[in-house]
């Protein structure tokens, strides 16, 4: 007899691979999916951005969200309330301890995760090890080694994984990638990627003043810190003040580079590698850092709005013109209006060719059923985050670096190589 999980991917009948293969009208009235065919989902660490992701997931008719886990009581109760209100019941279970949660809920197929950055990779690994598929917010690893471990774990256990670089599933950006990859811009020689304009590449190393630790049932401070070095509690951290601290954050480069490097590398068809050279820039923000891929194409980090109008943008410069996309305006920016002529066709063809929808969450759910690789799969995450980490290390060491993407190591630079990983605090290890 088959289990429900097997049925998700292999059952005969229209619902088996519904979104990927079958039009919703074939599913039944209003596209409804029978309860036992639904993807059972749970959440970990869902707050601001995570609640947005949850609001994105819950309307999907083939998902049943059943449980939330958070080391912070107020956050898990808030998420439970949100889910219960949506479903009109009180069925969503809340768990404070993640290892118990993962071990106990063997019924859960997919995990939606939006903890702080420090936990993204480790939690993804734990969830995949527990047999779950994963959607995680970005930046999805704190070190190059963590990125490699995510890739290895997903392969090892046959897991589907999507990192939250949702612009890889947005028409404006996809159009730009396709324009760059297809040769319509001529030979592309340079890409630009936006880095967060409010942060520095250099981060804080000091501890905030110690405050009394709250009761464990309110905030499990040890679990909150997870694999990071211990430091005394300060309420600022748990209110988002962890950003900018070396132990918890990946700087202005990772904050947006997690998105924009993935975007740039998608358009350059460099999702399976990383730049081989990083040129140090003598400022505090990495603005203007030039990186070089092995084929000579440059990826340049840019902090301002010189190359796009909005935020989180990327631009591709080729011999015949340029295209750019970013949040904040409704269509891509192009060097000539003629480049926009086939916008709809280009995006439509991409969707037909890849069977990927212009909906990042939907792409994950489709792949949970089909077992295909998501658009922001572990390799895409690892390679783009390697670019992030290598650029950060270049800034921290204040010297230009050469990197071997095959060996995943800096060339003749032991100090840089040591920064590819950080020892994790037990028991928060992989």
């Amino acid at each position, binding site marked *: 007899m*088959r289990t429900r999980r097997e049925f998700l*991917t292999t059952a005969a009948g229209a619902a088996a691979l519904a979104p990927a293969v079958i*039009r919703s009208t074939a599913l039944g009235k209003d596209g409804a999916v029978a309860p036992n065919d639904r993807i059972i989902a749970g959440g970990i660490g869902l707050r601001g951005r995570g609640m947005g992701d949850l609001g994105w997931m819950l309307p999907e008719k083939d998902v049943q969200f059943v449980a939330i886990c958070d080391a912070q009581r107020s956050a898990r109760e808030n998420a439970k309330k949100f889910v219960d209100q949506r479903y009109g019941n009180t069925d969503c279970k809340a768990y404070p301890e993640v290892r118990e949660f993962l071990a106990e809920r063997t019924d859960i197929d997919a995990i939606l995760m939006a903890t702080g950055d420090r936990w993204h990779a480790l939690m993804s690994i734990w969830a995949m090890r527990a047999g779950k598929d994963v959607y995680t917010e970005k930046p999805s690893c704190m070190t190059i080694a963590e990125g490699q471990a995510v890739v290895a774990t997903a*392969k090892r256990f046959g897991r589907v994984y999507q990192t939250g670089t949702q612009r890889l599933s947005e028409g404006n950006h996809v159009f730009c990638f396709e324009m760059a990859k297809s040769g319509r811009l001529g030979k592309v020689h340079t890409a630009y990627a936006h880095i967060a304009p409010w942060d520095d590449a*250099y981060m804080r190393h000091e501890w905030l*003043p110690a405050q009394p630790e709250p009761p464990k049932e309110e905030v499990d401070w040890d679990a909150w810190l997870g694999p990071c070095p211990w430091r005394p509690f300060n309420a600022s951290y748990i209110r988002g003040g962890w950003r900018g601290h070396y132990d918890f954050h990946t700087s202005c480069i990772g904050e947006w580079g997690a998105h924009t490097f993935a975007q740039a590398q998608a358009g350059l068809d460099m999702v399976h590698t990383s730049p081989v050279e990083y040129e140090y820039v003598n400022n505090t923000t990495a603005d203007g850092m030039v990186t070089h891929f092995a084929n000579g194409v440059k990826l340049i980090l840019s902090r301002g709005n010189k190359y796009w109008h909005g935020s989180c943008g990327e631009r591709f410069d080729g011999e015949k013109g340029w295209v750019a996309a970013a949040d904040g305006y409704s269509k891509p920016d192009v060097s000539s209006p003629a480049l926009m002529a086939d916008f709809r066709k280009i995006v439509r063809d991409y969707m037909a060719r890849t069977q990927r929808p212009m909906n990042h969450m939907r792409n994950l759910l489709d792949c949970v059923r089909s077992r295909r690789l998501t658009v922001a799969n572990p390799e895409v995450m690892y390679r783009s985050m390697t670019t992030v980490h290598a650029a950060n290390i270049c800034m921290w060491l204040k010297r230009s670096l050469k990197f071997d993407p095959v060996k995943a190591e800096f060339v003749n630079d032991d100090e840089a190589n040591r920064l590819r*990983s950080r020892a*994790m605090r*037990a*028991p928060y290890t992989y």
Partner: protein
Amino acid sequence: MLKLLKSATLLAALLLPAAALAGEEAQPPAKLDEAKLIAVLKSDAPQFEKAEACRLLQRCATKEAVPALAALLADEKLSHMARYALEPLTDPSAAEALRAALGKVKGRLLAGVVTSLGVRRDAKAIDALAKLLTDADTDVAQAAARALGSIGTAEAATALEAAVAKAPAARQVAFCEGLLRAAEALAAAGKKDLALGAYDILRALKPAPQQVRMGALRGVILTRGDEGLPLLLEAVRGNDGILVRAATRAAMELPGPAVVKALADELGKLPAENQILVTFVLGKRADAAAVPALLALAKKGEAAARLAAIRALPEIGSGTAAQGLLELMSDADADVAAAARDALTALESAEVDAALAAMLTGGDAKTRAAAIEMLGQRRVLGAMPALLKAAGDADEAVRIASIKCLGQSAGAAEFPALVGLLCKAKSAPELQAAEAALSAVCQRESLPGGGAVVILKAVYGALPDGPSADVTKKVAELMKGGATSVDASNANFGDPCNGIAKKFRIEFSVNGVPQTKTVNENDTVTLAGRITPPEFVDTMCAAMANAPTPAKLALMRALRSAGGPKALDAIRKATADADDEIKNVALSVLCDWPTPDALPDITKLAKTSKDARVKILSLRGWLRLIPLQEATVEEKLAALKEAMGMAERPEEKRLALAASSAIPAVESLALVVPYLSDKGLKEEAGAAVVAIAEKLVGSRPAEVGNALRKVVEETTNAQTAKRAKTLLRQAGGPPPKKR
């Protein structure tokens, strides 16, 4: 401001004055002093300073630092940070220190040390780690299993193999993962037999978690390589969903072409649900060898599997799929036909374009027409000569398909030929297709920048109700400076409501044609009109001379789409043509001219024509163009009054009332209000009053109020009444009488 836990001692040890830059004073320098950092560890410095010293020693430690770091491994507060520095230190003394700590620490600290030895792949630790597999502390035992897996030697694998079957449930996944890791390492080291032995143990494990079953099957298939194909196929043929998934995932990773051939050969024999999963693999592998099998399934299989097979073909990107997809486009199943069309459109291959072009010269008419349609969908610019040739095909359907395709993709170079096709059209549908194609090319190839642009009103801010700024003057300046579009941005207009997402609303006219656009912040509004290339008009006018009458009629209508003075002149001349049919169509086209440059002709016709049909057409054209002309309100009103005076039928009176609503003046209200008492026209009059009032309520509230009260009294249209009442509240004054 928070007081930060900094240490003057440590900062003094770390910071090099020359390295300090603005904004990074508290940052570790590029060059570190190991001796000073070791001294911090040996001092009575507080925890933060020692932790920070360890963090910096991660970068620079040598064997000199190992004793000081090793001393901290048993320190509850600093053990982790000691590992932070020791773990990446390649000197053997670091591993020795970690191994030595195994017998000295317990619990979390021990789990941490064990993990570090695994990260370092320290083979000398295998015996000690193997003993820890039975440690009472589950965290320690699990860490030991994963560490042994990372070390991945034959000895490490042996220790795990012995332990995995006996592992308690709570430790089972960790032990299995350890063995999976070890098997991966052994396979990578070329010790395939040992790796396969490890995988076989995991495959035999019962019960085993689904992810372990998947991992074990994947591993054994990948390790065996092509020799693993029988096992892969066995899984794919079966009904164990976990193993089917594992096999298809492995098939995506397995190098070499054999796996594609094996799956392609098997595809037709599989259960439908497994066929679907295999189509995903074959698409992902992008090997053209799978195309025949996918096409076969696409032609004959269960509905969902047929669709999956078709959708895998664009991912492969081989032109060899073109003919089969073309045939599927006429499948009886509409979903299949649509999927085939989408797939063929998306299939990126020059071979497809070549195959389609070849089909134009061979095959039956249906095939030729389908090939033409796909060439259009695929925007194949190189196909223009073939398309032009096909436009002269013996089959009408092929000719029409070709002309339609040219309408979608032809440019200036093909325009004369397209005019020629129109003149030679052999049937009404063909003529119609050619006329539509000409109009489409005129529209597509028209250039921005034409037309007289008048900025009427521009507002930027948190529209509709939030703070905003009137930026009419600024936009007018930008247009005067030669811009043809305006960015709705703070850079242009400043920020009237900091931190709030803004909108930009602009009212403007191009050649007297009023338009309103609202866009989001950072969007761009194009304000200029468009000009059809003059050579297009020249070509069409020249063709008029010798074209047969039906073609002449079509050309005149196309000239209306092109617009401009030369086109108008050609139509004007045609109104005096000796051929009544040409003359009548020319008069219709003239009366329907879209821009006010035709007003003098139309007005004259309205006043002087003896032909009732022309009189009505011209009166309607006149009423339509009155508000669009560049004229004063008084001139427009005078013209409107005159035209209204000539209107005898309710249809034209309604048009007149609609025209009045586009002339926002008190005098317009005076003109319209009497019609509120006309039973047949009161609703149009009410709508006109409300439209005028919306523009005047701020400046002429009293006059607007009187007219609106009358609207509320007379209208039976709920929407009009609601709008009127809303405006009345803005205008103030007494409320309307209750009816």
